[in-house]
């Protein structure tokens, strides 16, 4: 495998937009440490999967060479605008489309001016790759794919990167516990929604530090204890693309309007 680093990044834009707010600033500080680790791994390409890029027909892959423009999150618009600056590794994305289609996962390229790249991808790329100097392969979250199917997609992306001789960093964009506050809160006092979600998040993060086998063993308990973000399929992307990891460093963990968010660097 040509995987040189792997990370879990939160998709909620609040830590990126409002790092001056202490609970969110702590998450952002962890993202800064992840950015340094990513740079040290010298990847040629980022393999990004975001739970927030929703697909329902076919699997979609971003192939616009350079996506730019303003993006306003549909929920968190009052906290500021996001700037899209994302470059695609078009050759590798097209190889992924061909390989996924050959594997029975009907796939399509997305190459449209002003396509609304999701907040999660913009934020993760903004933290880790702010000048967009590293191109990316970005895969959508097809709602009808399960965890195992997403592992398969991750594996396909990594295999194609290896075939092209590229050093790849795996970026899984998504949250932990998904329960959130559905009313206005004092953002300075943001916290995980409840103790059950907090405990489940901490147990899952602890499992990550013990390696991929421990993570896989812990996921059923996590999913029983709390509602995870999109079935935690973004972790399937990590497992599939890396083929497993030996441990992890949790760079930060905290709330995003009650939902769990963490920045994690996986050890390969």
């Amino acid at each position, binding site marked *: 495998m040509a995987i040189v680093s792997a990370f879990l990044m939160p998709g909620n834009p609040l830590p990126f937009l409002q790092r001056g707010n202490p609970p969110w600033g702590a998450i952002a500080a962890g993202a800064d440490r992840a950015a340094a680790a990513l740079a040290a791994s010298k990847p040629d390409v980022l393999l990004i999967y975001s739970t927030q890029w929703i697909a*329902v027909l076919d699997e979609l892959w971003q192939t616009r060479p350079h996506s730019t423009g303003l993006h306003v999150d*549909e929920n968190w618009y009052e906290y500021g605008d996001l700037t899209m600056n994302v470059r695609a590794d078009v050759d590798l994305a097209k190889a992924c489309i061909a390989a996924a289609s050959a594997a029975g996962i009907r796939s399509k390229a997305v190459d449209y001016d002003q396509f609304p790249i999701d907040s999660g991808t913009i934020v993760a790329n903004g933290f880790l790759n702010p000048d967009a100097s590293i191109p990316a392969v970005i895969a959508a979250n097809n709602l009808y794919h399960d965890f195992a199917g997403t592992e398969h997609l991750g594996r396909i992306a990594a295999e194609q990167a290896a075939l092209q001789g590229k050093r790849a960093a795996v970026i899984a964009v998504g949250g932990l516990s998904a329960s959130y506050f*559905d009313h206005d809160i004092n953002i300075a006092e943001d916290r995980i929604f409840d103790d059950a979600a907090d405990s489940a998040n901490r147990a899952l993060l602890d499992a990550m530090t013990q390696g991929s086998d421990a993570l896989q063993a812990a996921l059923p308990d996590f999913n029983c204890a709390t509602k995870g973000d999109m079935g935690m399929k973004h972790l399937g992307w990590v497992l599939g693309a890396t083929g497993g990891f030996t441990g992890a460093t949790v760079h930060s963990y905290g709330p995003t309007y009650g939902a769990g968010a963490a920045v994690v660097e996986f050890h390969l």
Partner: protein
Amino acid sequence: MAQGKIVAGFVAPHPPHLVYAENPPQNEPKAEGGWEPLRWAYEKARKSIEELKPDVLLVHSPHWMTLVGHHFLGVPRLSGKSVDPIFPNLFRYDFDMAVDVDLAEACCAEAQGLGLTAKMMRNPNFRVDYGTITTLHMIRPQWDIPVVGISANNSPYYLNIDEGTAQMETLGEATRRAIEKSGKRAVLLASNTFSHYHFHEEPDTPEDMSKEHPQNYHGYKWDMRMIELMRKGQIREVMRLFPEWVEEAFAEVKSGAFPWMVSAMGYPDVPAELHGYGTVIGTGNAVMEWRLAA
């Protein structure tokens, strides 16, 4: 000032395929046609709008999904290009809409007064969702009537169907109060598909109607049962069955536009007029009208 009133409510579904198939100048992709029965249904709805001469169109869209409360567009003019994140091959539409901010603010205040979390969206760079745009284009392609855009709060999914629907009905009550105080003639648009079972792969030619039919027979039967009740004016029975319909037909009405609209209209017992029904990628779509005033 005369009391404002809701002159009509429409179920006005938002598959972007309908805009694509019509080939309006605002939309970049071009089609060979397709989904004609639904587009002809919208032609009838457009004639109704012409007759009703409303001052404002209010649309509740499931594709502006908000987590914290019910949101209202609050910028006087919004424009830009809307590229559908799910169907970018079909919908890349240059929109330019005038927003009735005064009425939106009034609806928001009434909603807050009734205990809902409600907010005004004031960011001028906000890109309006494709559900709102599709419904508005299909009902009034001239874009010459101001709009109130309302988000779909996630409560029916996050809480449960009963609590979520209750919130939407309260939002409908708030909307009616605001309209009555405004002195305006208002049309409500529930931007919802009915049965939402759909195919998972797109034909090579999206408008190839030889591929179009209900994806799920059970969902289709539910749609027909509910449409028949609506045509008979039995809206209370529709709402009694609503949770079952949502569950068994995977109906998109769960997201709230339909209960919002019928609550705002006071659960009318006038028969609804079915302008047409058709499927889009297998989902069930009805264009229906409740005429409440001349």
